[in-house]
């Protein structure tokens, strides 16, 4: 519990790490001051880009005592405003799942290598980042906790598959190697409630450890306080669920 008499300090800055294929990519790294040991989290930005909102999310995790790193998954596309870069990536059909997984693996290795790490790392993502978080939980075995917020395209139709996204993430469900927290809005158009049902059923059938929470009055992006879709009570509860889940699994 946060109290007003405790010392608090944070360092936050951009850094570079070696990502997929050894490529140098940027990352935003926020961490509490102090010897630790601290749990870590890889914060996966959404398709609108490596933007201010995600820097704020990253600092929020650091404020709560996590070594938080948010890699720029669009580093290779070029440099510019987050929106311009994201628009260019979107025009190219997004980034490949393989490349993204490589960048997330490298980010996790980076934070785990720090002397003040407690040896555990989770991941958190929203929208396309939620999809990437689930995929990382299935394809990588480095994560100890997965937070998937309204992961879009976790269930993909065959006509949505591309060279960059060649396999629907739900097909990897049996490989999920860490506890999963899923947060969804019932008014979301994608994932729809029926897709969330299917996702949940597949996790149950595979015998996975997971918690799903659905908010009846929330839509897509309900934790984005800079968007009209923001839903205050759902968002506040969802953040509590996030930190409770991480506390249980990686702290």
């Amino acid at each position, binding site marked *: 519990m946060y109290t007003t008499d405790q010392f608090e300090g944070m360092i936050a800055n951009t850094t570079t790490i070696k990502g997929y294929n050894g490529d140098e990519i940027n990352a935003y790294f926020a961490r509490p001051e102090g010897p630790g040991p601290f749990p870590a989290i890889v914060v996966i930005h*959404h*398709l*609108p880009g490596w933007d201010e909102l995600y820097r704020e999310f990253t600092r929020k995790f650091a404020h709560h005592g996590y070594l938080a790193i948010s890699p720029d998954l669009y580093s290779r*596309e*070029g*440099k*510019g*405003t987050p*929106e*311009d*870069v*994201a*628009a*260019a990536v*979107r*025009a190219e*059909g*997004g980034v490949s799942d393989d490349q993204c997984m490589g960048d997330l693996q490298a980010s996790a290795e980076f934070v785990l290598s720090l002397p003040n790490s407690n040896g555990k790392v989770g991941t958190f993502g929203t*929208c*396309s980042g939620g*999809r990437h978080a689930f995929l990382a939980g299935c394809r990588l075995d480095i994560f100890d906790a997965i937070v998937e917020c*309204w*992961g*879009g*395209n976790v269930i993909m139709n065959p006509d*949505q598959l591309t060279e960059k996204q060649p396999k629907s993430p739900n097909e990897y469900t049996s490989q999920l190697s860490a506890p999963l927290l899923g947060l969804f809005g019932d008014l979301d*158009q*994608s*994932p729809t409630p029926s897709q969330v049902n299917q996702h949940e059923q597949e996790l149950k059938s595979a015998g996975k450890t997971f918690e799903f929470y659905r908010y009846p009055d929330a*839509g*897509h*992006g309900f934790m984005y306080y800079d*968007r*009209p*879709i923001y839903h205050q009570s759902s968002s506040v509860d969802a953040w509590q669920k996030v930190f409770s889940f991480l506390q249980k699994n990686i702290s």
Partner: protein
Amino acid sequence: MCTMICEQANLEGSAKGVEGWFPLQQANVFYDHPFHAPWEYGVNIDFVNKSIGIGSRVSVELSPQSAKLLAETIIKALEKGEKDPQIKISVLD
């Protein structure tokens, strides 16, 4: 989620961006989340020239109804122009 719906057209023309006019190379038409407009999904049109730089982009975000109206309006203007005998099609060789 992000739909990843994107239709592209190679275009000739000019667009005025943050740093002034630039020659157009392409239009990307998305049916996806807007950056700024308040709805969950919209028709987002980027006029770009990536060969100049990633920031050479003029963007508009429209509601689906507005996008249809714009498309119809462009066609109407074209039809009027093409019917006018005093107008010759302007193309650079």
